[in-house]
C-alpha cells in the first residue's frame, strides 16, 4: 500500500481524541492493534462518507465522540458543529431540519429557501434520533441516503457528507427507528461506559472541549453559512476558513486535521484496495446465510422458517429478514477503510470480520427463539452487537472448515460463466445453492 503519510496523520487524530478528549477502553482487536470501537468507527465514518448510529446510555459520550471526530477530520470549530446539530424530538419540523422559506423574499412575492446549517454542512449530527416520531423520520430518509436535501422546488446536494445519529436505549420518550432508516446506517456502535477510573478522570477534566473552539472562526463560518451566495461558492469559502482553523489547531494542539484534498486522496486510496479471495468468499458466505431460504427462495420478514429444514444450523434459521443490498456495500466500504488505516495492501478476512458485526447488528431481525436463548448470555456488548459478533464467529468457524471447497465452488462457477462445461460443486452450505442458481441462469 502506498504510504502518503495520511495513515500516520489519521492515527495521530485517533490518538489525540483517545488521549485528550474521549476517554475509553479499547474494545476491538484487529491484527494486534487495539482500538476503541466508538472512536475508530466514527473516524472511518467521517473519512469514507459513511453513516453511523451511535447507541448508549445517556451521558456516555455518544454525541461528543462524533463531534470531536468531525472537528478534527473536517476542521469545523466545535461551535459550528453544535449549531448545525439536529435534535430529535416529537415537535421537530422539516423547516428546522432542512430549510425554510426566505420570508423577506416571500413578502416580495419571490420564492427562495434559507437552508439550515445542518443541510449545508458536510458533517451532520442528529442527536437522539429515536425521539423523532416514526412519521417524521421519513423526512430525513432521502437526505441520509443520498445527501440530497429538498425544500419547495429547490435542492442542494452534499457532494461530501457523513452522518452521525445518536440513540438512547428505549425509554418512555423514544420511538422505534423505522426499518428503512435503520438500514441506511452503515454501522452501529455503542459508546460505552469507560470504567470507574476513566470516568473519574472525565469528571476531573471539565471543559476539555474548549480546545476545539475558536469564536472568531465560528463567527466567520456563521457569516458564510448565512450569506446568499451559491452553495458551491459557499463551500469553497468555508473550506478556506476551515483550513485557517485547521492551521490554528495544528499550532495550538500539535495535531494536524485533514483538509478537503487530504480527504479526497484518502478516499481514492481506500477505493483502490481490493478484497482478497478469502475476504470475498467469507463475505459471500455470510451474505448467503443472511438471505437464503431453501423453501421460499429468499428470506422475507413475513415468512417463517419452518422446523425440520436441512439448513437449520445456519444463520438463515435464526433471522427473520433478508440482508439488504446496502449491507455488502457497508461491509466492503468499512473493511477497505480499516485495511487502509492499518496500511495493508488488500482487504483480508480479518478486516472483514472486524467490521461485519457493526455493519450487521442493527440490520438483522432475530427470531424470538434465538433472542430468548441468548439474551442472558454473559457478554460485554449490547445485545444486538453481541448477537452479530456471535454470528460472525459462527460463520468464520464454518468458513475455516470449508474455505478450500468454497473457493473451489466459486472458481468452478467462474469457469462455467466463461463457457467451460463443468458441474457446480455440491456442498452443505447455502452458498453452494446460490452458486448453482447463478450458474443455472447462465446456462439457460
Amino acid at each position, binding site marked *: 500500500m502506498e504510504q502518503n503519510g495520511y495513515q500516520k496523520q489519521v492515527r495521530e487524530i485517533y490518538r489525540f481524541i483517545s488521549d485528550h478528549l474521549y476517554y475509553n477502553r479499547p474494545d476491538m482487536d484487529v491484527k494486534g492493534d487495539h482500538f476503541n470501537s466508538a472512536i475508530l468507527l466514527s473516524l472511518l465514518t467521517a473519512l469514507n462518507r459513511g453513516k453511523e448510529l451511535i447507541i448508549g446510555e445517556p451521558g456516555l459520550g455518544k454525541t461528543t465522540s462524533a463531534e470531536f471526530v468531525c472537528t478534527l477530520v473536517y476542521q469545523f470549530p466545535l461551535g459550528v458543529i453544535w449549531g448545525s446539530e439536529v435534535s430529535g424530538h416529537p415537535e421537530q419540523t422539516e423547516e428546522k431540519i432542512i430549510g425554510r422559506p426566505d420570508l423577506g423574499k416571500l413578502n416580495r412575492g419571490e420564492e427562495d429557501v434559507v437552508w439550515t446549517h445542518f443541510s449545508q454542512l458536510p458533517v451532520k449530527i442528529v442527536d437522539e434520533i429515536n425521539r423523532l416520531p416514526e412519521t417524521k423520520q421519513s423526512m430525513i430518509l432521502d437526505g441520509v441516503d443520498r445527501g440530497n436535501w429538498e425544500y419547495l422546488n429547490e435542492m442542494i446536494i452534499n457532494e461530501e457528507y457523513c452522518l452521525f445519529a445518536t440513540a438512547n436505549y428505549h425509554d418512555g420518550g423514544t420511538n422505534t427507528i423505522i426499518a428503512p432508516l435503520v438500514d441506511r446506517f452503515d454501522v452501529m456502535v455503542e459508546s460505552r461506559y469507560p470504567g470507574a477510573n476513566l470516568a473519574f478522570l472525565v469528571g476531573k477534566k471539565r471543559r476539555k472541549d474548549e480546545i476545539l473552539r475558536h469564536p472568531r472562526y465560528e463567527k466567520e463560518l456563521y457569516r458564510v453559512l448565512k450569506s446568499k451566495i451559491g452553495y458551491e461558492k459557499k463551500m469553497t469559502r468555508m473550506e478556506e476558513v476551515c483550513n485557517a482553523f485547521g492551521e490554528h489547531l495544528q499550532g495550538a494542539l500539535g495535531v494536524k486535521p485533514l483538509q478537503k484534498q487530504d480527504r479526497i486522496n484518502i478516499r481514492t486510496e481506500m477505493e483502490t484496495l481490493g478484497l482478497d*479471495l478469502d475476504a*470475498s468468499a467469507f463475505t459471500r458466505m455470510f451474505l448467503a446465510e443472511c438471505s437464503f431460504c431453501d423453501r421460499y427462495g429468499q428470506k422475507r420478514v413475513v415468512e417463517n422458517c419452518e422446523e425440520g429444514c436441512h439448513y437449520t444450523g445456519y444463520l438463515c434459521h435464526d433471522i427473520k429478514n433478508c440482508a439488504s443490498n446496502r449491507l455488502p456495500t457497508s461491509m466492503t466500504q468499512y473493511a477497505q477503510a480499516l485495511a487502509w488505516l492499518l496500511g495493508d495492501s488488500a482487504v483480508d478476512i480479518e478486516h472483514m470480520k472486524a467490521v461485519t458485526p457493526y455493519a450487521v447488528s442493527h440490520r438483522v431481525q432475530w427470531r424470538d427463539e434465538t433472542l430468548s436463548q441468548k439474551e442472558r448470555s454473559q457478554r460485554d456488548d449490547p445485545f444486538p452487537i453481541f448477537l452479530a459478533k456471535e454470528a460472525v464467529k459462527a460463520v468464520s468457524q464454518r468458513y475455516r472448515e470449508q474455505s478450500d471447497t468454497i473457493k473451489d465452488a466459486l472458481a468452478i462457477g467462474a469457469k462455467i460463466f466463461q463457457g467451460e462445461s463443468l458441474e457446480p460443486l*455440491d456442498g452443505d452450505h447455502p452458498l453452494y445453492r446460490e452458486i448453482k442458481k447463478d450458474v443455472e441462469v447462465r446456462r439457460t
Partner: protein
Amino acid sequence: MKGSPQRKERTSRHSERRGPALQNPFQEFQSYSFSTKNIPLDRIVQSTEAVMDQIRLGYEKLLEEEAKELVWMVQYNTIIKAYEVAERYVREIDYSAEDIEDFCFALENTQKIPYLIPGPAGLYISALCNYAKEEEIVLKLSELKTEINLLGFRLTKGKRLLIEGDGGDFTGIGLEGGDLVVEGNAKNWTGAGMRSGKILVKKNIGLHTGEWMMGGEIHVGGRVRGLGNIVEGKVFEREKMVFPGKVRPPNMYY
C-alpha cells in the same frame, strides 16, 4: 439467405430479447486454480449417513431389548445388562468420534430416532466412547434440551471425554481410569462406584457425589451439593479437598 438483411434483423431482435451478456459474479475467482482431487462431498455425506444409520440401528435395538417398558429404571443390574447389549452392537460399527457427536445431535433433532430415553442413550453413548478409536472425544451437548444420564460410564484408562454442556444423573459412574471433563454442571450420583481416573466438573455437582467410589478423584469447580458414602478416593471442591477431610455428613445441604 446467409447474411441477408432479414436474417440480420432476426439475429439482432433475438439478441435484444436475450439482453446483454450476464456479468460473471465470480470474476475474481477466475484465476483461482481449484482442485478436483477431493472426494466428492456427496460421497462423504453418503458414507457418513451409512455410519449414522448403523449407530441409530444399534440404539433402536438397545431400546427394543432393554427399555420395552415406558419407564426405564436405573438399577445396577439393568445398567450392566443394557451396557453389555450396547457393547455388542457398538463393537461391530466402524465409526469416528465425530459420528458420536452427530448421534448426540440427532437424538433430539431428527425424527429418525423415535425416543430419547436419557438412561439408555447415555449408556449407548458411553459404549460408543469406550470403543472409539480416538483417545479424546468431545461431545457438544450444550444445545440439547434433555440432560443425558450415565455419560462416561466405565470410561477406560487412556480415554478422555470432554462434555461441553451439562451432564445428567450418574455421570462418570464406574469410571475405569479415564479422564472425564464436564464443562457445565453434573447432577446427582456423579462418580458413583468409580474405581480410578479423574472427573472434573467445572460448575456445580449434585447429591450423592462419589457414592461407593473406590478410588480416583473428583474435582468440582463450583459447589458440591452433597457427598455420598465414599469408600476411597478424593473429592475436591474449588481446589480444596473435601474428602477425605473433616467429617461432613453426606448429602448435607449448604
